[in-house]
């Protein structure tokens, strides 16, 4: 098997199954009545933290490619992003159905009144267009440039999700801080690279470079 075949046939299914483990644990726990004294809280917290972890992992793919030169990593980005959306949806629905009893009024009041809900809700809503345009056809329809621009919304999701977590914690912000530092690093390297690239282009004043970077396939863009 070639590298690509190995990634597609073995690693990718393995990552897919691994992403399902937290969900499987919840279902299993619910069956056994083993989700603790407050199962709804367990479901909310588990789906919430896995959404954040998967968003962070998705955002980490591109910097990881730069660092390792393993372009094969790009093959996992869409799947990880969709799993982030999957857990985010469960997180939101648990809150909306079980905490708000499907009342849009209560949801709206919470979104407007409580900053941590505002952040969490924003993070989730911005994932929706990304999930909807995750197909190859959407990339063709939008064009690589626009698709790429749209999918930068995930940076806002990552930031909002971290703030959401930080503002929810009662006293100990150690873990939210770790996530905040990770997201800041992942977004920071992008800024740093963009600035460096612009300087290189400005310095060389060579129009051919601009053309060549625009000619990349959309999937390969950060």
């Amino acid at each position, binding site marked *: 098997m070639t590298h690509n075949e190995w990634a597609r046939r073995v690693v990718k299914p393995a990552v897919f199954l691994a992403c399902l483990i937290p*969900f499987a644990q*919840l*279902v299993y726990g*619910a*069956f*056994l*009545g*083993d*989700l*603790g*004294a*407050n*199962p*709804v*809280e367990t*479901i909310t917290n588990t789906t919430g933290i896995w959404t954040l972890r998967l968003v962070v992992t998705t955002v980490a793919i591109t910097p990881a490619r730069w660092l390792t030169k393993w372009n094969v990593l790009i093959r996992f980005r869409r799947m990880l992003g969709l799993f982030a959306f999957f857990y985010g949806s*469960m997180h939101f*629905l*648990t809150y909306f*159905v*079980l*905490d708000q*009893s499907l009342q849009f009024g209560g949801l709206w009041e*919470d979104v407007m009144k*409580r*900053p*941590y809900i505002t952040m969490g809700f924003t993070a989730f809503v911005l994932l929706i267009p990304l999930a909807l345009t995750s197909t190859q056809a959407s990339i063709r329809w939008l064009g690589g440039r626009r698709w790429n621009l749209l999918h930068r919304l995930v940076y806002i999701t990552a930031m909002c999700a971290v703030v959401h977590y930080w*503002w*929810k914690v*009662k*006293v*100990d912000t150690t873990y939210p801080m770790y996530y905040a530092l990770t997201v800041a690093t992942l977004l920071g390297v992008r800024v740093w690279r963009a600035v460096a690239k612009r300087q290189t282009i400005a310095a060389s004043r060579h129009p051919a470079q601009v053309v060549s970077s625009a000619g990349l396939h959309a999937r390969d863009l950060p």
Partner: protein
Amino acid sequence: MLIKKSPDIRESEVTPRDVYVRRREFLKVAGSTALAVTAAGAIGGVLTGSTDADAQNPNAQKLTNLKKSPFSTNEKLNSYKDATTYNNFYEFGLDKGDPARYAGSLRPRPWSVVVEGQCAKPGTYNVEDIMKWFPLEERIYRLRCVEAWSMVIPWIGFPLSDFIKRFEPSSKATYVKFTTLLDMKQMPGQTEPVLRWPYVEGLRMDEAMHPLALLAVGLYGEVLPNQNGAPIRLIVPWKYGFKGIKSIVRVSFVEQQPLNTWQQTIPREYGFFANVNPDVDHPRWTQKTERRLGELFRRKTLPFNGYADQVASLYSGMDLRKFY
């Protein structure tokens, strides 16, 4: 002071254990189903056999000859497991499961309580003796946490007022201050500076003398498990749970309002009074509703946690938005 009695509850009205255990099984199924719907996945199959979720600790000392109390609610009890595995007791860690996991390092016997301050009979007393001073009674109270969850727990204890009267506090004693044990070896969570240790709580004297205020030494017919604040703790059912200070080693009659730990930590979010109040939200989340553990949907929170008839008069004329 006029004390209105809550409706009496006859022994026959208390839900038999097997009924509420079955109800919990139903809720487990309901919970599973909701999760499956949420995930757009189908859950079929047979529910596994009943777990022994409501078993008590066979090694714990049992407390018997308990008086029944007219103040008990007739609502369905939460399970022993709920009450003893879902705890906020930061002295053993921040996770709700940490106290049950780590409170084994606490040594609740022998235990002495220092009584001091503005009173005629200060002193140091052994908790075993204190428990013999008063007839023990069972009180089934609602417990409402500031985090918007609640339980119904059968506590065992005696009125705080009876305890206080013994020491003949003077007219200068306008507040009662309570202090938890400070011992990093027994309470490893105290090595973390999340709160300023030891934990401190307080009540105004009229609150402390209210017949609903309880010093608890047990629950579900046995002595308090360590994670629930062994060997002696405060229960003030019309206030948020954090007022119910655990593992008390010091009771002080004081002139000034004590600075309780949570108020000291985040004064914008936690006050001295901490009366359950659906109209005053926590700055970050709503207090209008709560999740009773074991229930799927949230229920409405009642003013003073449903004890308004008995305690609202303590606060007449006070702006409870200001004194939250």
